[in-house]
């Protein structure tokens, strides 16, 4: 049996009080409860504060480019269907620079869990607006305040046909851990958008701000797409948390007969096996 401590490594470079800490803790606990040994888990990330996570947990890690956390994860699933794959990145990374991969990975539906640390700001580059920033938030680039309406990740994911869509809050660690466990287990693409206070650059969406607004809707049916969409679009005074939708559909991997069976990366090969390939050209 694993313990959360097995996964926690190194000092972090996050600011004291940052919402990334409880997320890291929750994930370590989730992995421990799922008893997933570090060598069986791969975390792909992009670039940003959230995306430093592979350095702060003892797991396999592919810390790639800003905005490009999802595609390597898809490739890794092709290579090895036995790997548990987690994608961990920021809101700018996932919904801004990486927006195209976000929508098309949802269509693809590979078996991976996507944990977005949504601090509604670009943390690492010091405070510019992200796609999810609140209207009116002033930054050194959005000097008179953000004017573009915030991107609604959960609503878009649902519209794109995502099978597992959840919202969590870094301040609700137990719920976060449980949701992470469900997302990891979900057979297909699972999005968990995690509301994460950035104590340094986001003075609007603080712990207190979220605490005041977040609630767990009662009696929500996670197979009800329409109800899920309504909750996904709810924001402002009341922000619903929880798994909003949970209905599996065929995974990316299932469309490739070749991927059934043992992981592709472990199968032996020799050029002589395919010498027949040139017969068609005779």
């Amino acid at each position, binding site marked *: 049996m694993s313990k959360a401590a097995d996964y926690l490594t190194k000092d972090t470079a996050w600011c004291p009080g940052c919402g990334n800490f409880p997320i890291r803790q929750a994930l370590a606990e989730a992995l421990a409860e799922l008893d997933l040994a570090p*060598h069986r888990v791969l975390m792909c990330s992009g670039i940003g504060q959230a995306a430093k996570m592979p350095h702060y947990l003892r797991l396999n*890690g592919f810390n*790639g480019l800003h905005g490009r956390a999802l595609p390597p994860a898809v490739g890794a699933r092709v290579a090895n269907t036995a790997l548990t794959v987690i994608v961990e990145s920021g809101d700018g990374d996932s919904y801004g620079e990486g927006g195209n991969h976000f929508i098309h990975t949802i269509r693809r539906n590979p078996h991976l869990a996507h944990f977005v640390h949504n601090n509604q700001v670009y943390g690492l580059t010091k405070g510019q607006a992200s796609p999810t920033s609140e209207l009116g938030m002033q930054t050194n680039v959005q000097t008179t305040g953000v004017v573009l309406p915030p991107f609604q990740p959960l609503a878009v994911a649902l519209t794109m046909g995502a099978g597992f869509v959840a919202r969590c809050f870094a301040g609700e660690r137990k719920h976060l851990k449980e949701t992470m466990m469900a997302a990891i287990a979900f057979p297909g693409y699972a999005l968990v958008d995690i509301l994460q206070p950035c104590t340094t650059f986001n003075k609007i969406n603080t712990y207190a701000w979220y605490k005041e607004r977040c609630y767990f809707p009662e009696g929500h049916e996670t197979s009800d797409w329409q109800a899920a969409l309504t909750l996904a679009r709810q924001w402002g005074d009341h922000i619903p948390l929880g798994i909003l939708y949970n209905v599996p559909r065929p995974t990316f991997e299932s469309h490739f007969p070749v991927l059934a069976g043992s992981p592709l*990366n472990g199968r032996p090969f020799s050029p002589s096996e395919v010498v027949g390939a040139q017969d068609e050209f005779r």
Partner: protein
Amino acid sequence: MNIVIGGAAGQGMDTIAHLLGKTLTRLGYGVLLSKDYMSRVRGGHNFSLLRIGSTTPWAQATDIDILVALNEETYAVHHQKLRSGASVIFDNALFALPAQEPRGLPTPFGSLARAAGGAILASTVATGAVLSLLGLALPTAEGLIREMFAEGLVEQNIAALRAGYAALLPARPVTCALPKATPLPPQIFIDGNQALGMAALASGCRFLAAYPMTPATGVMTYLAARQQQHGLVVEQAEDEIAAINMVLGASYAGLRSMTCTSGGGFALMVEGLSLAGMTETPIVVVLAMRPGPATGLPTRTEQGDLNFAIFGGHGEFPRAVLSATNLEDAFYRLNKAFNLADKYQVPVIFLTDQNFADTARSIRPYDFSRLVYERHLATEETATFPYQRYRLTEDGLSPRAYPGQFIGEVVLSDSDEHDEDGHIIEDGAMRKRMMDKRMLKQNALATEMSEPELYGSTRAEILLIGWGSTYGAMREAVDTLNVRGKNAAMLHFSDLWPLPLNNVTTLLPQARHSFCIEGNATGQFAALLRRESGLQTTYLLLKYDGRPWSGEEIAREVEKNV
């Protein structure tokens, strides 16, 4: 013997050319087939060039012996190149040739096709007519049709073939008949993209992620059609950025993987290329060049991306750039690309172009036993534990494991500068060590590069230098020049970066006249040679109209100068 088959896109020139090419190959001739097509799906003016010899020709010539004119424009565009004893096959129900043209052989493709079963059979009718002109018998072509077409279509096609054959039989001039073949040993008839696709397959590449882009798409479609049978995965990505990053993820996770694209798509991939450099993840990128900048001429050819292949991507990292020079070699060289990528944990760019990609030739079958499948992965012996992905070693190579390979060990790959474990660092000394480690691999790669191929004498007065798909044309030019009493040779590069310099350093200074021949406007290879060696050819021959060099053209340009 040169045959041109021209018409509008959609008129089936490809079918005719392919049927003829393969039939002739089986009959023991040497065939070269290339395509000249426009960036449109229907209409316009497209044509195929088929050159036939007792051995396989290296490049196209300009004279025409048989012109199959599926529309009037074909005649207008090509008639000036017709030899005196040539023939023009055309459908007299569609148009007439000028009154003064004595070489016309009217053949009612359309009505013969409809009689055989439908208008779509016109291209098969035309094939029959050409075979008739060439003085060949039908059984080989009929056998081919039986293999190629779906059951229900075979009989109609054979009927169409025979109808075309019969229509020309009475009228055929002897000038167009082929001498009997001295059968060559068994051959295959294959084009560049197919050869590369098959090389990837046979190199154990198990994953291709790509986004369609002419002229690279053929590699993708080749592999896509063979997924089930050969156990690989082909994924059409949402864009080229996704494609290369998927490939990186798969390769990191232990699978031999590649992508293919053309210049515009490669431009979107260079950030990923730099990531491959930093994370030391092996990948192969097939870059099929076409004329740029921007969208340029999508279906034409150029050698304009050499600099970009070598210098594209931010920051400094080791890489290799190899190229396709001819069909015989490219199959093995792409295999080399995969092995270099794995051995040195670097991106390898394989340069090809439309001219290479879309040209088919009859060649000796490939020898699969020459292929090497070496993954160069870490073993219990080479790795140290706890496992460090970027362990500093003498030769700069850290034993590479994939996630899960060693129970209990984790593999951390990082885009930031990192320490031996793969963790982000900031300190200058470690940064320098890691840069040195990576750049050591560039030096080692230099020892793996093949010297350019010398064709002709080491003492030639005229030395032609080139790279990539100009091989065939340059080789013909050398032959032509020597026949015309000049003393010429060529030095032709396949491996381009790090640039192998031994042969050129010896041979170039000895030649009285040297020519660098390229399919671009700025002489990129000539400049690279100067950058790397200080050497310079006396002349620079450049062509950048989107069309490939012919041997005759090169010979003529050389003769202008010497």
